[in-house]
């Protein structure tokens, strides 16, 4: 007997026994599958609130008159701020990574659970706490902050800067700080699990691209959230203790000079965007992985350029850390630095272009089935192209002079990190729902959901690009300028608002479908889509230890579809090596 066996034994004990009581089984569970679903539920609650807020301010913009505003300017900015914060942190970071990542990463690599299940639970509960603290900002005196999801000081650092900047802003910073801790704990788990708990034969280059994406995303989160935490720490010290990290001397409020010295508002922006830009990839990389996974499955083809896809994910992860300055071209930052950031920003277009090429290549000469999951994956590709293209404008420092902080920027990042990421979440849900709940989601309803969403989101965001070209600045609660008095502006706003209502209401269809199918959906078999990866070798839903006490042994790559000479049109990763001599090399 190995000397290390006792240590292992002790470790295994709390992993392998399924708790019996409801509270330990479903609430304080250490099972990665339950935690994944908890994250997903949290994201659903958050998305309802976040999108509800967007309807409120879209309605405000469509019906604006100076006399009878639907929201007053404070409430408008509060809605905008909370919409951004809730969606970026509580939806786009939790659902693809915390939700799907937690549920499927261990299964896809053949592990029984995450490396540190209790830390995993801690990560979820910290996220929930962070969410509750953020939501609490709605009920405190003064309400939530108005400083936008970016929370730039001095606006965010000074209570008297504008109404609503009191306790609400403090709760906002606190919530972000807790979220950072939660994400760090989560990220550690993802990384260790991927590195150390892969099944026999599951080499890194045999991992599904979704797993690769979660793994790289976790590394990005690990390195970036710590820096945001530092940024938030300094901000809260400036707010609560009166230090001068961000607040310069000679700042005047209410005709009185504040007692601050020599801080730099740009310091915050650097710390924030050092996190903030990688955050974009935290939101979108899992989507890229999920979509790759689904495209190969429903095109019945191996991923076109699997290695290039892996390197592209990694390259995006690395370059993503060196481009944050492109958010600050017009901020007063050194113009020489801006040149460097601009060129680096363009290089990140290269791996993104490779991914697009390879998605198209995966479809090429395929045998494409149009399930709801596949439609959303195809929609993702289209949105990724559209949203990525406008990034070519904003990444250029000279062009950004005109576009900075206009609706063009809003349209750009909504398409790519908002809508595209949402499409990947929807795609992943339709795809994996049978595995998670043992039942299919309703397909006709799913297709209706896709069409309503696909058409309406483009109707929202393409016009926004045009408004950006006209120079319409973002975060305006009203239209107090002559140039916003063009008759085209209100008609555009009306159209966008109408489309936004369709887009948001269509998501209710999705949520209804989700819960309805949990109980009423058609029963799904083990491998409903004839997929190849490890999640399809186990029961639907999987056993507590994922593989029912068996250990998968991996003999093939993740995407062996339509292998010539094979019996079926797919070879599962665990099929014996002789299943397809031709494919075994991969």
């Amino acid at each position: 007997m190995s000397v290390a066996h006792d240590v292992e034994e002790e470790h295994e004990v709390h992993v392998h026994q399924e708790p019996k009581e409801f509270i330990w089984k479903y609430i304080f569970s250490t099972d990665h599958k339950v935690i994944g679903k908890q994250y997903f539920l949290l994201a659903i609650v958050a998305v309802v609130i976040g999108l509800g807020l967007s309807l409120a301010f879209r309605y405000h913009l469509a019906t604006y008159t100076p006399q009878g505003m639907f929201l007053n300017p404070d409430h408008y900015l509060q809605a905008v701020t909370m919409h951004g914060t809730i969606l970026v942190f509580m939806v786009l970071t939790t659902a693809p990574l915390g939700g799907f990542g937690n549920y499927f990463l261990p299964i896809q690599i053949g592990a029984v659970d995450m490396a540190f299940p209790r830390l995993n639970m801690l990560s979820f509960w910290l996220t929930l706490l962070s969410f509750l603290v953020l939501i609490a900002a709605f009920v405190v005196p003064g309400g939530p902050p108005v400083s936008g999801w970016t929370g730039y000081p001095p606006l965010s650092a000074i209570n008297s800067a504008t109404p609503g900047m009191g306790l609400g802003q403090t709760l906002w910073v606190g919530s972000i700080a807790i979220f950072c801790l939660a994400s760090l704990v989560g990220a550690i788990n993802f990384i260790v699990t991927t590195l150390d708990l892969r099944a026999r034969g599951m080499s890194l280059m045999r991992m599904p691209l979704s797993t690769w994406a979660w793994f790289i995303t976790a590394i990005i989160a690990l390195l970036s959230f710590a820096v945001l935490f530092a940024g938030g720490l300094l901000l809260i010290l400036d707010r609560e203790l009166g230090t001068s990290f961000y607040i310069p001397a000679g700042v005047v409020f209410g005709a009185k000079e504040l007692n601050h010295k020599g801080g730099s508002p740009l310091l915050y922006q650097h710390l924030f965007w050092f996190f903030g830009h990688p955050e974009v990839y935290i939101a979108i990389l899992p989507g890229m992985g999920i979509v790759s996974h689904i495209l190969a499955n429903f095109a019945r083809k191996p991923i076109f350029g699997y290695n290039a896809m892996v390197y592209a994910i990694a390259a995006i992860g690395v370059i993503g850390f060196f481009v944050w300055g492109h958010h600050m071209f017009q901020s007063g930052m050194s113009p020489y630095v801006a040149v460097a950031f601009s060129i680096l920003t363009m290089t990140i277009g290269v791996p993104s272009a490779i991914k697009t090429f390879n998605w198209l290549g995966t479809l090429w000469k395929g045998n494409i089935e149009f399930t709801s999951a596949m439609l959303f994956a195809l929609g993702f590709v289209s949105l990724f192209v559209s949203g990525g293209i406008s990034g070519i404008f904003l990444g250029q420092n000279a062009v950004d002079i005109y576009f900075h902080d206009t609706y063009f920027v809003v349209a750009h990042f909504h398409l790519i990190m908002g809508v595209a990421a949402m499409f990947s979440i929807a795609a992943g849900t339709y795809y994996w729902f049978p595995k998670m709940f043992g039942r299919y989601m309703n397909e006709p309803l799913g297709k209706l959901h896709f069409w309503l969403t696909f058409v309406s989101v483009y109707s929202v965001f393409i016009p926004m690009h045009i408004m950006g070209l006209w120079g319409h600045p973002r975060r305006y609660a009203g239209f107090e300028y002559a140039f916003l008095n063009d008759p085209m502006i209100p008609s555009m706003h009306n159209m966008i608002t109408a489309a936004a209502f369709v887009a948001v209401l269509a998501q209710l269809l999705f949520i209804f479908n989700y819960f309805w199918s949990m109980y009423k959906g058609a029963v799904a078999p083990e491998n409903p889509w004839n997929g190849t990866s490890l999640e399809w070798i186990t029961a639907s839903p999987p056993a507590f230890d994922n593989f029912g006490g068996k250990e998968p042994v991996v003999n093939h790559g993740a995407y062996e579809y339509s292998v010539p000479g094979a019996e079926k049109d797919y070879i599962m990763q665990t099929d014996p090596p002789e299943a397809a001599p031709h494919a075994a090399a991969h």
Partner: protein
Amino acid sequence: MQPLALVVALVVLVLGTVVPFFTRQHLMPEMITSHGGTIDNQIYITMFITGAIFALAQFALAYMVFRYQAKGQKATYVHGIWWVEVGSIVSSGILFIGLNLMGQGVWANMHLKEPSRQATEIEVNGQQFKWYFRYAGNDGIFGDRSAKLVDDASQNFMGVDYENDKYAKDDVVEAAIKVPFDRDVVVRLRSRDVIHDFFVRELRVKNDAVPGLEVKIPFRVDKERMYKFDLSGVTAATLDAKDVSAVKGAFESHGIKVTDNAEITPIEFKGAGGKVIKRWEFKTYAYSLYDPVNKFWPLTYSIFDEGGVMKVYKTGYEVVCAELCGNGHYTMRAEMEVVSGEEFDAWLAKRSEECKSYH
């Protein structure tokens, strides 16, 4: 059914997006600065290239979806084609980085070059939710300022030290900005409270005004001003009589709506050597779409006597704030007026004297 619908949707998307740009319906407002053209060119080149990539990629997606929909065929077992991978890396790299490098000249001219010494300096001060502009006055030197001296009640918004600094006494502070035509101008952007952003669409100038920092942005308004047209049959006397009806037809035939409260104001300065500088300011108003009763926006034009022919130019523009600065962010505007260099000098000399005698 699904693939066909997707093809239609993608084709509609591409046409609906690309066509408006080629019909030039939805582009930027006209620009009036020397560097503006290079920015616009860069935008158009980018638009052209990305528009092509956008269309190609969406059409390629539509093609794949349609051509390879499941009809019982067997998918081809391909793991990739090396030259496609390498080709996509090389071509996208060259394209994106090349495009970027093309734009660096514009940036360098604006930000990396030492601004001309003769440039007219204008200090732009942002505060919640107003802009104030300071000119150095006749002595050409800005007076000291200190946050301690800020006193909104006596209209000392930026704390200029009128008491102790002799250079300060003749400084001119205005709520609207006057920019001399065809001269180098440097705006010194500052803020006294939160971050604001100085944005004039037609100048193609946008930069944050950050508290504790001064950012210098040079530009030169040198384009033939917009809406240049003749007023035939109108004489100086008619304009001096402020007779709006005499010019109404001409303005409306150029698409400028003349409202009932439109007005003509003769503006006259004595320039260097006693030369008379004269123009007529024509202000019409756009009633707000949102508040037609109480709100209207001035649209300012100037009429110049060019050898007996009366010519109209657009001279009024709008400064806005483009960085979230609080609940009144959307109301933070100022008017910008482009005037001839001579008039600018005469105006500044006069205002500077007035300010000096006041302080």
